[in-house]
């Protein structure tokens, strides 16, 4: 099947340089940050590749396309899914100020009209804004069936439907969605046996987690096409509904350690200094 995977570029939280806020709190600065694919979107890429491959054979059952919104730098981030095995990428050029979930959902809907995928598979949310809205809005715009928080996907009815295990508070809710559909994925979709496409043998050993780009994949990715378009090309107005009024960082942690000579001294200090006894 043809699968479209929207991915978002987010700041890598493990990088030494962290997100900063301007002195007046009006904006977030991205200087010195390292970027990576939003982890949930990376899981969606992995799930899409598992759906579209005959495990281990190199045969592909359909085209997998990634799409992102942002500036030219985002192309660098898109190289990772391409190196993992995705066939091609689409970049919708836009600046951060022009987009929020509503604009993203409209732009994705416009691309879906053009590309006609059988499935849109995406992360349940991005780890920066944590909004958890784009997938749902997209399904609404398209009028397609939707299954969120997928932790398992199985192809059913000769490829005309998916059986999706949804992670909900009380356990797992299993839904059958007719294709075309929008599915958003949760962490456990990259468990070794979470995705079954009916073609890959059940005993094929997938690693836990999203696959690493192989050297061959990295080389091939350099030659894969990244089609560029823009919001206006897609007929989407850059008018976000969410307005950000102020940013602030969480308070810094405080605390220090001192040595005590004895248990008695510790108890004394807990009583008189820490005042917790």
């Amino acid at each position, binding site marked *: 099947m043809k699968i479209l995977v929207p991915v978002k570029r987010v700041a890598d939280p*493990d990088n030494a340089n962290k997100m900063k806020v301007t002195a007046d709190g009006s904006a977030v600065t991205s200087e010195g940050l*390292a970027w*990576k*694919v939003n982890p949930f979107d990376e899981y969606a890429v992995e799930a899409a590749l598992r759906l579209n491959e005959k495990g281990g054979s190199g045969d592909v059952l359909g085209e997998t396309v990634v799409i992102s919104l942002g500036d030219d730098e985002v192309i660098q981030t898109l190289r990772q899914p391409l190196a993992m095995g995705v066939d091609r990428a689409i970049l919708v050029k836009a600046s951060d100020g022009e987009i929020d979930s509503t604009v993203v959902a409209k732009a994705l809907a416009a691309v879906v009209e053009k590309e006609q995928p059988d499935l849109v598979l995406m992360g349940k949310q991005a780890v920066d804004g944590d909004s958890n809205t784009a997938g749902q809005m997209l399904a609404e715009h398209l009028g397609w069936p939707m299954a969120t928080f997928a932790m398992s996907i199985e192809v059913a009815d000769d490829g005309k439907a998916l059986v999706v295990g949804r992670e909900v508070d009380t356990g797992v809710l299993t839904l059958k969605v007719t294709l075309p559909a929008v599915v958003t994925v949760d962490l456990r979709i990259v468990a070794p046996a979470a995705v079954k496409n009916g073609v890959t043998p059940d005993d094929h050993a997938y*690693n836990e987690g999203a696959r*690493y780009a192989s*050297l061959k994949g*990295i080389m091939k990715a350099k030659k894969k096409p990244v089609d560029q378009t823009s919001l206006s090309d897609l007929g989407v107005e850059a008018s976000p509904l969410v307005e950000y009024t102020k940013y602030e960082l969480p308070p810094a942690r405080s605390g220090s350690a001192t*040595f005590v000579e004895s248990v008695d001294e510790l108890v004394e200090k807990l009583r008189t200094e820490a005042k917790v006894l």
Partner: protein
Amino acid sequence: MAISDDDLAALRAAARVSTEAGDLEAYGGDWTRVYAPAPGAVAFPRSTEEVAALVTICHDREIAVVPSGGRTGLAGGAVAARGELVLTLDHMRRIDPVDVVGRTVRVDAGAVTEAVHEATAPHGLTWPVDFASKGSSHVGGNIATNAGGVKVIRYGLTRQWVLGLRVVTGTGAILDLGGALEKNNTGVDLRQLFIGSEGTLGIVCEATLKLARPAGHLDVLFFGLRDLASVLALFHAARRGPFEISAFEMLTDRCAARLERHRGVRPPLEAGCPMYALLEVEAPDREGLEAWLGELLEDDLVIDGTLAANHEQAARLWELREGISESLAATGLPHKNDIALPIAGLTAFCADLEALFARRYPDLEICLFGHIGDGNLHVNVMKPDAMDKAAFLARVHEADEAMFALVRSHRGSVSAEHGIGLLKRDWLGYTRSDGEIALMRQLKAVFDPKGILNPGKVF
């Protein structure tokens, strides 16, 4: 030289001293776990002056002293198994403000390596001594053992990053050996004698450390290879690559199998390979790095490989190397050796080693890994499940002798970075000559005339 009640009273007048069973057990050993800790007492000095006062008493009364840091050593250098006084620097952890212009920081010996990294990071500086045990190891212990680690290929050993030392000798005298001076050509550099002396000449109490700017963005690559010769060919190619190497590490499929059994992790490659290599580089020229990777594939040097896409993937690749020691210990009983060979002779040595074990010790499994870029191999011999511990230890002792004879014939070292301590004492003569060892003993007599500092260690 047991510690009497009278000795204890005298020592207690100088600093806090404990004889509690928990302290004796905790402070009497290190990571070797071969020797049962049995110190007589543990002293917790809070300053260099208190250390000097304690050692003066020990000198007068001929009490043996074992200096103790973060106790992460792998050669038994900090083991007190014969009623000694353990002198722990655990309560001397002060880190002074960083001198950002001079790029130095003065610290107490008990400062934890990682704490030094954390203290210097906000100034855009770091102390480039780095290894898996950085969360426990002390600066003093790093200096006393001239610690190595995973970044030696780029930054060198601990020795390169120490400007000044304050040490207490075996008579209780305090020596100030250089301060924050980058240049100080004024005779014999006594400071260097104490670096790597494993507590046999004096106790490192304070140090002025040289700092460097941290590396920029580091890319981590992981390769699957056919054999050791390919690993060395890859290293040669990496030396000529358009980047700066900060680590080049190797492990065999046996290490990988133990990692999978213990931690459930495996190399993220399509299929298993006989050898794996981890390469960490600072590559500002991304295009250049990718072109270099393309050449590797064209030359068929590697079977498969990957480049971490982000910090999380990089950390997971590092886990495949840094998790080995723990996974070997969790899946069996490893007998550890840490040897160094001239890089040019590594392939020949490993072929000889393999042949030796195949011929004489076919029942013993060798798990080989190490800092191949430094010619440093960690040879871990695993106890077969069916063999009892005493029989195994006797057998590896015999195997060690044969292996160290090989090391000597290949002009290598019986201890690359772990030191000699107790564990390798019998083998020192395989790397150092009788004349050298005699000179070491004479030097010890100068700084520690009564031989109270870490007796029985090194030589």
